[in-house]
């Protein structure tokens, strides 16, 4: 094992950990005085990790670190890029939110950095043990982040719920992992694939089902979605934006690598599960959102719905399907962060969030710029053609049709029409209902910058990215099928 090469390949994770440790000490000594500096340093570190990851010289060629624990390939780099970008966005918008509640501390940045380290490990793990430590690092810091606004009862409740159910899911994954290990005799993905190709026993099937069930929990796919609305509603809004973006990308990437590499020879063993989870997520996400009054809960159901579309690409089990998943994830991250940042900016003069449909009625007359941004984001989430969100759905459905899953694609499209109902309701309330209350308080420039960037990408201008995005996603998806 070549330690120098391994350290070079994992330099982004190691660098982020070192920065996080230093910032932790700085926070411990200086307390509230240096939070601004700590946040800026954390953002800079994430940018550094992003640039380093993208510019790894062997970006296209898969390379293994630490004797086959982690694999740095195009797929991992694509996912990491998205994860770092999303984390940076959630770090930038956070201080202002917590300031009003007197709760912003440097540990927020430190925990996000550790979370990013964990997610980086999750997406590049090619060994069950590496996968699990990455997952736990990311999950544990997420539990703390969920209850970061500790004076807020709902935030504490969200943290506790997330902790208990997340711990249960980790246990289920571990149980599956132990079965998979028991029946294959190895924890390395390639080894498992070889062992399962030779002999796929009933017990191993149980292992696969358990692993997938635990992962479905982590990506909030139906039927393991019940925690999502409560946690998303209770957690502080910047943290919710984070949960809906970066960890979801990491968990989906982890699941994609899991089913294509160790279980890649046993497609029929997991395909039905993924198809069921995809359809159920789309339908529950679309129907569950209809009755919601609270905007954060609505977006939580919207994220469940989107996970369903992502899983349709995975269900196709082809390189084109995986490429569709990655394209969808890319667009989804910008749509989600944009929507949550917009929610973050919706606050009245006292700093109270405008949390329900009643609060935002007639927003177009009170704050036209914000309303138009939300309009673009909602239409994009609904997949209405001129906007970029349509492209994501298009590539995913195209992959499903190419894989002869026409029924799946048809049901997906039908459910996405149902889903369009509440996105359009959002727009209707903002533009056509009578204006109530005063204009929202002025939002800081950083929020506008993040929101502006997201809206720019989901706008029709985003189609300029498609050649680049398609190439990158295809290359990333091919990386997974190289060994096959």
């Amino acid at each position, binding site marked *: 094992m070549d330690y120098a090469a391994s350290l070079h390949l994992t330099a982004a994770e190691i660098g982020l950990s070192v920065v996080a440790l230093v910032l932790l000490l700085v926070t411990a000594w200086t307390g509230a005085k240096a939070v601004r500096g700590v946040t800026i340093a954390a953002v800079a570190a994430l940018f550094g990790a992003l640039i380093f990851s993208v510019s790894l010289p062997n970006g296209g060629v898969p390379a293994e670190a630490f004797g086959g624990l*982690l694999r740095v390939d195009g797929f991992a780099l694509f996912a990491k890029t998205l994860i770092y970008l999303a984390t940076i966005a959630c770090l930038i918008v956070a201080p202002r939110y917590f300031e009003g509640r007197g709760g912003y501390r440097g540990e927020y940045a430190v925990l996000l950095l*550790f979370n990013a380290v964990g997610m980086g490990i999750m997406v590049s793990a090619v060994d069950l043990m*590496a996968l699990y430590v990455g997952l736990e690092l990311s999950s544990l810091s997420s539990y703390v982040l969920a209850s970061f606004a500790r004076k807020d009862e709902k935030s504490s409740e969200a943290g506790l719920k997330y902790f208990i159910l997340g711990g249960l899911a980790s246990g289920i994954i571990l149980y599956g992992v132990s079965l998979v290990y028991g029946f294959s*005799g190895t924890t390395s993905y390639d080894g498992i694939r070889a062992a399962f190709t030779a*002999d796929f026993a009933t017990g191993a099937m149980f292992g696969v089902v358990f692993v997938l069930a635990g992962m479905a929990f982590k990506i909030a796919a139906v039927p393991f979605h019940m925690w999502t609305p409560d946690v998303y509603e209770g957690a502080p809004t910047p943290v919710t934006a984070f949960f809906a973006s970066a960890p979801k990308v990491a968990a989906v990437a982890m699941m994609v690598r899991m089913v294509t590499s160790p279980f890649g020879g046993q497609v029929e063993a997991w395909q039905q599960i993924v198809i069921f989870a995809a359809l159920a997520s789309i339908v529950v996400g679309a129907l569950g959102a209809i009755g919601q009054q609270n905007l954060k809960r609505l977006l939580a159901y919207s994220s469940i719905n989107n996970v369903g579309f992502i899983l349709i690409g995975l269900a196709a089990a082809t390189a084109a399907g995986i490429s569709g998943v990655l394209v969808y994830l890319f667009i989804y991250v910008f749509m989600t962060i944009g929507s949550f940042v917009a929610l973050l900016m919706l606050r009245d003069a006292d700093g109270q969030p405008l949390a329900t449909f009643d609060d935002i009625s007639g927003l177009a007359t009170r704050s036209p710029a914000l309303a138009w941004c939300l309009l673009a984001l909602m239409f994009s989430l609904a997949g209405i053609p001129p906007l970029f969100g349509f492209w994501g759905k298009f590539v995913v459905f195209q992959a499903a049709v190419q894989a002869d899953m026409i029924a799946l694609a048809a049901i997906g499209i039908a459910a996405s029409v149902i889903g369009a109902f509440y996105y359009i309701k959002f727009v209707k309330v903002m533009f056509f209902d009578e204006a109530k209350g005063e204009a929202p308080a002025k939002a800081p420039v950083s929020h506008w910058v993040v929101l502006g960037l997201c809206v720019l990408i989901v706008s029709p201008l985003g189609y300029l990215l498609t050649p680049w995005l398609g190439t990158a996603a295809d290359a990333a998806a091919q990386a997974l099928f190289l060994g096959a």
Partner: protein
Amino acid sequence: MIQTFAFYLFAVLMIASAVMVITARNPVHSVLWLILAFFNAAGLMVLVGAEFIAMLLVIVYVGAVAVLFLFVVMMLDIDVAAMRAGFMKNFPLGIAIALILLAELVLGIGAYQAGAIDLGTAAASDAPAMVESNTAAIGALLYSKYIFLFEIAGIILLVAMIGAIVLTHRPSKSKRGQQDIGKQVRRNPDEATVMKQPEVGKGVEL
């Protein structure tokens, strides 16, 4: 001979103390019995040659977990006696469930041994026969091949600690104000005192 004797000694003591854990009236005594049970389990592990697990049992379970239990039991002031009031009443039901589980276990293992359940075969271990002690073998793997995972596990524990502190620590403020010795020593008379010469009949503005 001596090994057989040691085995029955540890086994009997362990089962006896395990029974005492659930029957002891005083919860603190229960935890103490639990510690005894852990010690005997460690003895059994030594007998089968797994000295590393024996050490883990003593260090982790006796040293950390049981002491933690003890603190929790002593600090929370739970009326365990009241909680256990229904113990004798539900005892037959508990025994019945335990027997059913035992029967299932025996049937399952029996069927598996007889070849009725196809669980597949685990890959044969091709690891070379161990020459060094298993502590040394685990250490050699942990600090070379799995060093990265070992370090990340350390960070996970750190995150857990940060979480516990972030969520519970509040800056302490005593009602009488805080004494900052450095601040007191740094005071000098020029800044701390003001000389005034009030005129008769007029107040002083400080």
